[in-house]
Structures are given as C-alpha cells and as structure tokens.
C-alpha cells in the first residue's frame, strides 16, 4: 500500500494537468527505508511527448546525487497518461528499473486537464518488479503524523 499526504497528491495532479497534453513526470523522495514520500521533485520530461516520458540524463544524475547526499531514495516515481487510463503501459513495464519504488500513474484524459474540471482525477499506484505489475491501494492522509505508531 502507498500511504501519501494529500498535499503531495494534489501537487502531482496539478503538475499532470499543467503539462497536459505532454506527459508529466517526477519523483517523491523520502528518507531511505522509511517508505514515506515527503519531498516532491517535479522533473522535466525531456521527451516532451504525449506518449513518452524520460528524465534528462543530467537532471537524473543531479537528482540521484542529491538524494544520496540526503540519504533519501525515490519512494514514488510518478508520470501521467494523457489519453489512456492510469495503468502502466508495456513501455512503462519494460523500462521500470526501481524495484523499491511505488510507481504512480495519473490520467488527464477526458478533459481532466481543463481548469474548469473539478471531478476526480485517476491516481493509482503499482509495484513493477521484473516485468510484473501489482496494483496497490493508495491511502491518502492529511499528514504522516496521523500514521505514527502504525505498522
């Protein structure tokens, strides 16, 4: 299960809506081993495409160096689909190379990108390990403080 703060969910959705019709992408880093996604880092989609995303290689290096120096890991790796459901595509599955991450997919299809749209936006999370996709529940909390003491 992915436990994530509402402000982070809202920021990811806002990023996806802003970058539509291109795919938006980014990371939410957290302390290594904590499984808490606390530091949102929106990334540039170097592919600038409605059907593909890729972090720029220089940005990628700086991102991992920064996470290393802060003893963080990529807890969430997110991207948007702009015309299809929030489910990993074949490409997403082939290229997923962070077995410890929650892969979050957001969909901005069907007008969800429009500023006037105020309905729900698909926000789903998966583990992708060795080509196998497992969807997981998403629990949105106001703050991680609410989950203290839980196991």
């Amino acid at each position, binding site marked *: 299960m992915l436990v994530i703060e509402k402000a982070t969910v809202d920021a990811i959705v806002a990023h996806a809506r802003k970058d539509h019709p291109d795919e938006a992408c980014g990371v939410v880093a957290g302390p290594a081993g904590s499984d808490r996604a606390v530091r949102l880092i929106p990334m540039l989609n170097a592919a600038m495409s409605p059907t593909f995303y890729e972090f720029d*290689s220089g940005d990628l290096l700086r991102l991992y160096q920064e996470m290393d120096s802060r003893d963080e890991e990529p807890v969430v790796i997110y991207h948007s689909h702009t015309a299809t459901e929030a489910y990993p595509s074949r490409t*997403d599955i082939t290229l997923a190379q962070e077995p410890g991450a929650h892969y979050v997919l957001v969909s901005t299809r069907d007008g969800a990108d429009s500023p006037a749209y105020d309905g729900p936006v698909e926000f789903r999370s998966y583990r992708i390990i060795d080509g196998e996709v497992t969807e997981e529940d998403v629990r949105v909390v106001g703050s991680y403080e609410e989950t203290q003491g839980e196991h």
Partner: protein
Amino acid sequence: MAIELRVPTILRTYTGGEKAVSGDGTTLAEFIDNVNGNHPGLKERIVEGEPEELRRFVNVYVNDEDVRFTGGLKTEVNDGDVVVVLPAVAGG
C-alpha cells in the same frame, strides 16, 4: 588507486549488495570488462549488441559527464575516476 563504479539498486544483486565496487582499465569498455570479471552478469545489464554499445535506457557517467557525449564505451578512464551507472527513468 583504482576506478570506482557506483552501482544502482537494481544491479546490486551482481555486487553482493555493494553500492560501489572498483576496477581498472584505460577505457570505459575495458573497465566494465574488468569489473565484470569479479561481478559476472553486470556487463550485460549495461552493454548490448555486437559491436557492443551502451544500452539505450542505461546512463553512464564518468566524473559526472554523460559518456554519450564523450565517446561512449571508448571514453578514457583514469585512476581515481568515478563511474556512475543510473537506469533511465522513462516510460510511455
């Protein structure tokens, strides 16, 4: 002195969990071959094809420079250099 390889999480199964291993060589290709001698299997996750090329969705940096801009596998390496391997974060 030696050359250091920083290993990404997904490839640490080849290094017994180590985040960094070391090796020698005068080019990136030689260095990868050398490291692969102690950690068999690592090379084929970084390099593919004949003639050998870097895999499209694996990024390799020598001293913070993406080797795609410095000669790829022919990039010169020296004692004290740091080679970083990072899988691309990409999808469709």
